[in-house]
């Protein structure tokens, strides 16, 4: 990657958004800047095509941060070195048939593709503990659902675009649900709280679900919002756009 050709965009007066050709470049740049954090940079937020840098204006400035980005030496991130997590999945998701339809595969083939490759957590973002999993089978590329669900149960295993993910808790969501896991992917009392951190490798394993009663799960609602039910679906996110809720 040639860092001199990256597009660096202002994000207010204390942030820069670096746009690169794709996810691999983002992860390489993120790894380089995370390992050798430029002075005053307080947060790095990698996403599918961008890396957001937030900085403390008392300690650095946009010019210095941009220079650090352009002088970084990104090296391709080896995807085979991270910790490996096995996720047992009962493949009885309500969208499994739709995913089969979209991909032209049988439901069994969808499961075989999903379990047959190693995924890697690229970045987080939607909710605490939600990791965007990449590197899976290209045959599983599917659009988001036309309409978001207001409530996706904890542990739902889902697909959207080329990503897969596990909902760490019940929340609204628009991804295609193909299964569910009992594995707890987020626990604030655990250290680290997130099982699926950037760089962690994931292998899905089909689990027997003889009493697969359970998509109508019974966890409590994800609460704590000031507002009302979110409505607009935010493209690319596993859930709807939770922006401003009700009045306060």
């Amino acid at each position: 990657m040639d860092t001199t050709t990256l597009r660096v965009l202002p994000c207010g007066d204390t942030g820069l958004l670096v746009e690169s050709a794709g996810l691999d470049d983002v992860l390489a740049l993120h790894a380089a800047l995370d390992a050798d954090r430029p002075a005053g940079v307080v947060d790095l937020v990698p996403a599918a095509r961008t890396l957001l840098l937030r900085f403390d204006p008392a300690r650095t400035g946009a010019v210095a941060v941009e220079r650090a980005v352009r002088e970084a030496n990104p090296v391709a991130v080896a995807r085979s070195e991270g910790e490996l997590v096995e996720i047992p999945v009962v493949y009885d998701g309500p969208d499994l048939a739709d995913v089969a339809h979209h991909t032209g595969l049988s439901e069994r083939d969808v499961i075989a593709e999903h379990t047959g490759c190693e995924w890697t957590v690229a970045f987080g973002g939607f909710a605490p503990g939600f990791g965007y999993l990449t590197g899976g089978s290209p045959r599983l590329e599917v659009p988001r659902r036309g309409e978001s669900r207001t409530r996706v149960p904890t542990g739902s295993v889902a697909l959207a675009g080329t990503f897969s993910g596990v909902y760490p808790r019940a929340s609204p969501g628009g991804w295609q649900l193909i299964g569910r896991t009992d594995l707890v992917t987020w626990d604030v009392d655990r250290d680290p709280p997130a099982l699926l951190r950037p760089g962690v490798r994931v292998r899905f394993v089909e689990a027997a679900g003889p009493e697969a009663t359970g998509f109508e799960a019974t966890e409590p609602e994800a609460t704590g919002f000031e507002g009302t039910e979110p409505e607009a679906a935010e493209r690319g996110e596993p859930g709807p756009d939770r922006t401003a809720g009700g009045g306060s």
Partner: protein
Amino acid sequence: MTDLDVLAPGPLATVQDLGRPGNAGIGVGASGAADRGSLRLANRLVGNEEDAACVEVTFGGFAARTRTPVTIAVTGAPCPVTVDGRGAAPNSVLRLPAGAEIRLAAPVRGLRSYLAVRGGLVVPAVLGSRSTDLLSGLGPQLLRAGDVLPVGPPPAHFPVVDGAPGRPIAADEVTLRVVTGPRDDWFSSRALHALLTEPYTVTSECDRVGVRLDGPELGRASVGELPSEGMVAGALQVPPSGKPTLFLADHPVTGGYPVIAVLVASDVDAAAQLRPGMRVRFAPVRAPGRPAPAAPARTGPHRSGAPSSGTPSSGRSS
């Protein structure tokens, strides 16, 4: 141990400090006080470290009783403060005896007031912060009547002043400075012109996550798909409706709609004091380290040659 008994939370009261930055990789936002300057001031007044945890009171209505003598300060949205029924001054050091009852009435301007207690609130921290993040559901529960707030040991520093001028808080209209971008090129020049010249109105959808604004629709220059990207407090994100949402402390870590402009960091506190019905104008300033203001600013009458300093200019009040 010093404790504070919550008698009434008002419409919404949470514990806040300066948040938990640096956790975006696991999907956790920074959160923290919506009006950080007011939280810092409250802490400085009582001799705390600036990042000690306080109560963020939304639109007054908060009441608490002391168990031991405590020193407190109330900052942010100016609200009538009473101690055992007698008026007390905001932005000042208040020494309360044991058993005193402090009440914050609805603010005359602004939305969020901060109650600092000398020693800070020492509720359990999550990922290094005691802030309640209402979007991700992290941190302490919303405060309720009957809650007991533990207060930490007094810090080494004593209060050095009896009072301090708070930042002026606007009543009707406020102008907030923005740097256009990062996705201003996704919008028509007419949209940028409208954003930088027309007033927007704060709707009732207004919480710690963000403020939905009503006003001229901001049309796209082209139809496209934006992969989700990192968001910041102060971002003006434009969903397909064309009506911008101004993100505050509990904004999502990433978002999939383009951001047309971002408030300068020092104006985010003023945005956290917006209340429904107020008017907001946006004035462009040059991006730091950039040779010239972003192109669309040239069409707006509010173009300013250089970033200004100080507090945002407020309208008729303050």
